[in-house]
C-alpha cells in the first residue's frame, strides 16, 4: 500500500532509473536535498548546500553575503521514489523550523521568528509545492530578533512536519563596528591605549552574541587635561575616521571628562608665612583658564577683596603616587595684611565634576576618563582594568538601549530600571555594569543581558525607552 507521508526521508539513490514495476498511483516523492538560495554578486540566485552558521541579523542583506540579515531563503528538491521522470509539479512539501531549547520565550510581534515574506509571522510551519522538475519555490524564513536564539529549518514530504532534511541551524548574532582613539598622555610620549582592554570588551560582547569589529585608526589625539561635556561631541568627531555607522560606536580613552561646573564657596583659615591652599584632585577639578569667581579676606578688623591675580593656580603630584592636587598660592601684595599672621579667606570658585565616562549621541561616542582610575586604583591592576572595562561596556551599553525600561517580552523591567540622570539598572544592588556608578564589576545582570540580546542594534544609539 502506498503512503503519502510519514515515511522517513531517504537519501537520494545513486541511480535514476525507475523500478520496472513502479506505477504513478503508488509512487511517492523523496527529498533529494535542501538548499539555501544565495544571491550572487551579480544579483542572480544560486542554490548552495545547507550549512549551519551565525546569522548577523542587524546588518542589511547584501549580495554574496547570506550571513547578513534576518531572512534566510531555502529551496528543496524532490524526486519520485520510483525513479520516475514524469512531472513532479504540484507535489506538497512541508517546511518547519525547530527552535532551540534555550530560545527566549514570550517574544511577540516583529521579534518572533517565522516563515513568510516579512519578519515576525511567528509561523514555524508552512507548506509549499514543487515544480515539474521537483524544486520547491523559494521559502523564506526569518530568524527571531533575540540574539542567541537558534533555529533549524527542515523540509519534509511528511504532512505532519516530521523528519526531512535540515537546511542548517542558525544562531542569531549581531555585529557592530567600533573605533578606538586614545589621547596622548601628558608626558612620556605614550597614550592611554594601554588601559583599553579591547579583548575584554570583545569577549563580553560575544557573551551576548554580539561580534565587534575594529574600524578606523587610532588618531592619538593631543593631550588635554580635561574635556568638558559640552565639547565632547566635537572632540570625538575630530578624532574619528572609522566606518560602519550607524552600527558603530566610538571609544575614546582620555585624561578627564568634566561636567556641571558649579560655584563653590570655601572659607579657609590660611596660615601666615607662605600661604598655600591645597585642593585634592580626587574631589576637586579646576579649569586653570577659568576657575576664579570671587574672594574676600579678613584679618582682625581688616577686610577686603582678592582678585584672581592674588592667586597662582598650579597642579602638583601624579596619579601614580595618589597625591595630585590643585594648589593655590596666595599673594597679598598691595593689601593691608600682616603676612606673618593667619588670614581668613572666603573663596568662590568654579568646580567641575569628574565623570567616569560620557556617552554622546553623535557617533555614538564614549569618552572614558582614565586619570581618576589610575589615581584610585594605583595599587590594584585588576581593579584598574575592570573599572575601565566597566565604562567601556557601560557607555556603549547606553547606546545599545540599556538599561531598558522594558524587557523583550514586553514586560516592564520593574525594580531594575531607574531613570534619574539617565537610564540605569539597580539589579544585583550595584553589581550590574549598567548601575549608575562605576565599579570594578564587569558583569551585566540577567535582565540587562536579556535586554541587550533583544535589541536589534541596526542603528545606534537606541533609547532605553525605545521599543524593541
Amino acid at each position: 500500500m502506498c503512503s503519502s507521508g510519514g515515511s522517513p526521508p531517504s537519501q537520494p539513490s545513486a541511480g535514476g532509473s525507475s523500478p520496472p514495476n513502479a506505477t504513478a498511483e503508488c509512487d511517492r516523492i523523496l527529498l533529494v536535498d535542501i538548499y539555501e538560495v544565495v544571491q550572487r554578486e551579480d544579483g542572480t540566485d544560486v542554490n548552495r548546500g545547507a550549512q549551519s552558521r551565525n546569522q548577523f541579523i542587524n546588518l542589511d542583506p547584501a549580495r554574496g553575503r547570506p550571513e547578513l540579515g534576518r531572512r534566510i531563503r531555502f529551496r528543496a528538491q524532490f524526486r519520485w521514489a520510483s525513479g520516475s521522470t514524469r512531472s513532479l509539479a504540484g507535489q506538497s512539501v512541508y517546511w518547519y523550523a525547530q527552535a532551540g531549547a534555550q530560545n527566549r520565550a514570550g517574544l511577540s510581534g516583529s521579534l518572533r521568528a517565522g516563515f513568510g515574506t516579512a519578519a515576525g509571522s511567528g509561523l514555524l510551519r508552512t507548506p509549499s509545492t514543487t515544480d515539474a522538475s521537483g524544486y520547491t519555490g523559494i521559502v523564506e524564513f526569518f530568524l527571531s530578533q533575540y540574539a542567541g536564539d537558534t533555529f533549524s529549518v527542515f523540509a519534509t514530504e511528511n504532512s505532519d512536519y516530521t523528519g526531512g532534511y535540515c537546511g542548517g541551524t542558525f544562531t542569531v548574532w549581531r555585529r557592530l563596528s567600533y573605533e578606538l582613539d586614545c589621547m596622548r598622555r601628558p608626558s612620556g610620549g605614550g597614550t592611554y591605549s594601554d588601559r583599553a582592554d579591547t579583548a575584554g570588551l570583545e569577549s563580553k560582547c560575544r557573551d551576548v552574541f554580539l561580534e565587534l569589529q575594529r574600524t578606523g585608526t587610532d588618531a592619538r589625539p593631543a593631550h588635554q587635561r580635561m574635556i568638558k561635556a559640552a565639547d565632547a561631541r566635537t572632540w570625538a568627531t575630530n578624532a574619528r575616521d572609522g566606518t560602519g555607522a550607524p552600527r558603530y560606536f566610538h571609544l575614546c580613552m582620555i585624561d578627564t571628562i568634566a561636567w556641571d561646573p558649579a560655584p563653590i564657596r570655601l572659607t579657609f583659615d590660611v596660615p601666615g608665612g607662605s600661604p598655600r591652599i591645597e585642593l585634592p584632585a580626587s574631589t576637586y577639578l579646576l579649569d586653570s583658564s577659568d576657575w576664579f569667581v570671587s574672594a574676600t579676606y579678613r584679618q582682625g578688623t581688616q577686610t577686603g577683596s582678592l582678585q584672581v591675580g592674588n592667586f597662582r593656580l598650579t597642579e602638583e603630584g601624579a596619579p601614580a603616587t595618589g597625591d595630585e592636587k590643585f594648589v593655590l598660592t596666595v599673594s597679598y601684595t598691595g593689601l593691608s595684611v600682616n603676612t606673618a599672621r593667619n588670614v581668613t579667606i572666603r573663596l568662590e570658585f568654579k568646580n567641575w565634576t569628574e565623570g567616569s565616562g560620557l556617552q554622546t549621541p553623535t557617533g555614538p561616542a564614549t569618552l572614558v576618563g582614565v586619570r581618576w582610575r589610575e589615581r584610585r586604583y594605583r595599587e590594584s591592576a585588576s581593579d584598574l582594568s575592570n573599572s575601565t572595562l566597566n565604562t567601556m561596556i557601560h557607555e556603549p551599553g547606553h547606546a545599545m538601549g540599556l538599561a531598558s525600561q522594558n524587557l523583550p517580552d514586553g514586560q516592564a523591567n520593574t525594580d531594575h530600571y531607574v531613570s534619574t540622570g539617565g537610564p540605569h539598572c539597580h539589579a544585583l544592588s550595584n553589581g550590574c555594569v549598567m548601575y549608575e556608578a562605576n565599579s570594578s564589576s564587569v558583569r551585566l545582570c540577567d535582565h540587562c543581558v536579556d535586554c541587550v540580546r533583544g535589541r536589534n542594534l541596526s542603528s545606534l544609539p537606541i533609547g532605553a525607552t525605545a521599543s524593541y
Partner: protein
Amino acid sequence: MSSSPLVIGGTPVYRRLPESPPPPESFALDFAVQPASSQAGEDTVALFAATLLPGRYADIYGGRATGAVKIVAIDTRNGRVYQGQPERDDAVPLAVAMNAQPAPPRPGVARIEALETYFAVDLRRQLSLPPTAASYVVFLWLDEMTSAVRIVQLPGPEGALPPVLPSAGVTDEDFRFRRAEGTPPAAGVEIVLQQRSAAPEAIRIYGAAAPALLAAAPQPPATEYLTVMALDYRSRALDWWSYQVPEQARLAGELAFDFDLLTLLGGSGWLAATQPPRKAFVLASARGALSRVLTAEF
C-alpha cells in the same frame, strides 16, 4: 500646577536661585520646595537647597560635597523610601573619590573652615518618584546632619501604591516592635535611637518614639509607618525598612523597636568596606518626625 511659571530642568542646578533658602547662618542643610513643571511639561516639585557645612565635610568630600547629600522622600502611604543625590549619574563614584579618613592639613597649608553650596533639582526626576499623586516626608541627609522635615505633595493622577520591597523577607529576629532592655527613653515628640551592642556579628539598634508623638494627631496626610534607614559611610548606600506601626502601640502610646544594623546594611554593595572600622549613620522616621542621626561604628 500646570499653570506654574516655574520650570525645573532635568539636571541639577548648582547656584543660588531666587527660590533658594537664604544662606544658612550656622552649619545646616536647608531646603524649600515649589510646584514646578519639568521641561517636558509634567507637573512636579522643585527642591531648592542651601547648605553650610563644617570644614570636615570639605576634607572628606571636597568639591563633591553637594553630591554627598542624600535627598530622601518617604511615601506617607506605605513607608516606601526613595532617595537620590543632586549629582548626575556616571560621575566618578563618590565612594571611590572621597577621602574617608582625612588627616589634618600639613603645616603651612590652609585649613577649611566651612563650605557653602546650593543646588536645585526636579524632585520627582531626581528620586525616580512615581508619576502618580502622593505625599512624601522629605529631608536632606549628609552623614551626621539632617535638614528639617517637610511634607511634600507631588501632583499627578491617582495610581496604585508601589510595592514596599526592601523589608520583604526580613525576619522577626532582624526587626522587632518591642520594649527591650536596650530601649532608650524618649520624651517630647522625639524618636530616639541608641546602639547597645558592638559584637562583630550583630549590631543592635534600639529605638523608641515618645508617647506624645503617638498621641498627637498625625500631620495630614497621616503616616502610620515606622521607617529605619542606614547610610553606609564608605559605599554611600542607603538601606531602609518600613513597617506599619502596630495598632496596639498606637493605642498604648508606646512605640519601641530594635533591629539588626548589619542585616539592614546587607545590600550595601561592592564597596561596603566591611573591614573595620566601619561606620554607618542611622535614622528613624514616624508620623513625620525624624530622629537624630545615630553614628554606629563597629
